[in-house]
């Protein structure tokens, strides 16, 4: 151990004799490790941001959209005909594994508060919708059952709407806003969810009781018609089964013949997440390939320089052997030099990578996550590269004949 330590000290001294050369040799490893850490940190940050967006939609959510109809070849778009009703969704709640069932009708409208107004989306929803979609209250309270039963003119405001209608510091709860020329009492404000995967501001929204929307704000062509249905599943594993069951139940309820297409669309949140995960998986593989190549190139650089060094220092090797170095001492010395080079390169690379990731988040505003794991792995891998590529030159040095090495010019 003592000897190993002294060998490390000697290796540093030897490498310091050729500072420029050592620095250039390390550069390959520095760039490789630095790039990997910066890219992984940025990648992890992006992944976490995407996951947060997915989670903001609610957990294990299945969305059911009413279908479109085709009249003389003209397709109407989702919701073009009334194909989905509250009764449908209440029926779907009976499917095993479904914890909540909710629905929404939406409309775009102007909201007014004193001298300010804002154009936003109004959603008529039951309480279960807010639970499924993971909305939480920032201030005030959700609708009461009484509000829902009596179609009360109460409203919950998203953060963007609050910011647009109220001065900062003003408390919206308890105030009255106007929508479609009707006064609505603000009963609560919602915690911010940020942007969704499509880049839509999820906070630019107001919620009113579904009954209020149907009877007083939007009107209806058909009682119980909804814009979208939402189910939440107990666990992600059940979602595929539930989706199948939803299709079966709805086809049956809508009396669709087997040769007819569905008049609704079922979307599984997990599918969206899977696509995202697939993207980040292939991103990871790509990073790994880049990292491997740069470390490989760095390793070859180290091997190259060490081979030169062995030739240059043939006499020194002979001297060391003459004064009592065993072959394994020589082997160890060159191996340690290789590892010191690569590990130092790795260390500097880790530093640069972390700095790069920090710069990316500070200057470009990208979210980055620097995990300790990747730092340790990248550093450890660079040391391994040193051992692997140092072995051949070190072995070559240790196999020199001392007599010939001493005479080498």
């Amino acid at each position, binding site marked *: 151990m*003592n*000897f190993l330590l*002294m060998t490390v000290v*000697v290796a540093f*001294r030897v490498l310091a*004799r050729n500072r420029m050369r050592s620095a250039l040799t390390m550069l390959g490893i520095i760039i490789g490790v630095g790039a990997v850490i910066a890219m992984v940190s940025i990648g992890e940050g992006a992944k976490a941001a995407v996951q947060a967006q997915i989670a903001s939609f609610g957990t294990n959510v299945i969305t059911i959209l009413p279908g479109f109809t085709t009249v003389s070849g003209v397709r109407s778009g989702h919701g073009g005909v009334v194909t989905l009703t509250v009764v449908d969704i209440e029926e779907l709640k009976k499917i095993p594994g479904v914890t909540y069932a909710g629905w929404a009708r939406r409309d775009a409208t102007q909201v007014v508060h004193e001298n300010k107004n804002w154009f936003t989306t109004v959603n008529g929803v039951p309480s279960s919708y807010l639970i499924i979609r993971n909305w939480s209250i920032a201030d005030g309270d959700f609708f009461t059952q009484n509000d829902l039963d009596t179609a009360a003119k109460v409203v919950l405001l998203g953060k963007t709407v609050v910011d647009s209608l109220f001065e900062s510091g003003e408390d919206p709860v308890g105030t009255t806003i106007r929508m479609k020329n009707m006064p609505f009492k603000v009963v609560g404000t919602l915690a911010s969810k940020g942007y969704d995967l499509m880049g839509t501001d999820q906070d630019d929204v107001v919620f009113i009781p579904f009954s209020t929307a149907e009877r007083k704000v939007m009107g209806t062509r058909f009682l119980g018609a909804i814009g979208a249905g939402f189910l939440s599943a107990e666990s992600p594993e059940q979602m595929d089964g539930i989706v199948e069951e939803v299709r079966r139940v709805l086809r049956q309820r809508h009396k669709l013949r087997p040769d007819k297409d569905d008049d609704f669309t079922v979307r599984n949140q997990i599918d969206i997440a899977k696509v995202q995960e697939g993207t980040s998986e292939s991103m990871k593989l790509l990073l790994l390939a880049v990292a491997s190549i740069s470390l490989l190139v760095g390793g070859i650089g180290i091997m190259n320089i060490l081979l030169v060094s062995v030739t240059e220092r043939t*006499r*020194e090797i*002979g*001297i*060391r*052997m*003459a*004064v*009592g*170095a*065993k*072959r394994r*001492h020589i082997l160890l010395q060159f191996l340690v030099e290789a590892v010191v080079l690569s590990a130092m390169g790795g260390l500097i690379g880790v530093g640069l990578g972390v700095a790069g990731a920090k710069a990316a988040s500070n200057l470009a505003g990208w979210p980055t996550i620097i995990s300790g794991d990747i730092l340790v792995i990248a550093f450890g891998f660079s040391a391994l590269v040193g051992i692997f590529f140092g072995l051949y030159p070190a072995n070559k040095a240790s196999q020199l004949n*001392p*007599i010939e090495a*001493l005479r080498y010019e």
Partner: protein
Amino acid sequence: MSLIVCQDLVKTYYLGEMDVHALRGVSLSIEAGEFVAVMGASGSGKSTLMNILGCLDIPTSGAYVLEGTDVSTLGENRLAEIRNSKIGFVFQNFNLIPRTTALENVQLPLFYRGIPAHEQKALALRALERVGLADRQRHHPAQLSGGQQQRVAIARALVTNPSIILADEPTGNLDSQSSKEIMDVLTRLNGEGITIILVTHEADIARYARRTILMKDGMILADRDAGGVAVARAVPLEARA
């Protein structure tokens, strides 16, 4: 018991189809405390003999007993240990490690003994003092004169307290003044009891030794004491120098 006993040393190099007989049966014994010069033309086998005596090489056949141990059959690692503990080398071209201080050069054999660094330093400094270069310990070889470099090399040979110092043409690259200094150092060390075996082709350098072995064609031609009858045989040698 003699320090060195060699019996019928034979060394043959097999170079392709041609066999080179570097040593053809060399027998000699050297007592502790002797100062021996080995002389001979190039190709006489004196370098091969030195390599074997220095445990850098092993004989093809024959026995080499060093301090009661037959080293001709030992493995590489044991030979390295013997070089480290019993033998000090001084070379014609000094063979110091470049860009490394005198002190670190002298420390080198101790490094392979694995003794603590501060002990290495203390011993190395004492060895430098013995060759009168304690004030040059921080100098690199390039900053030292040839004579000083060779004295550092002698300090390196001394530092392990060896039984033998093998000096291979130690003055070959030095001017006459420096040569005299080096030979004086070696003579003084011999006076302190260290056995010195000197390879040289210069008769006036060989004259510092008290015994001269003359080699030719891989065999010992003459082996004479400084004050012995062999003086007569020394005449042609001196004439050649």
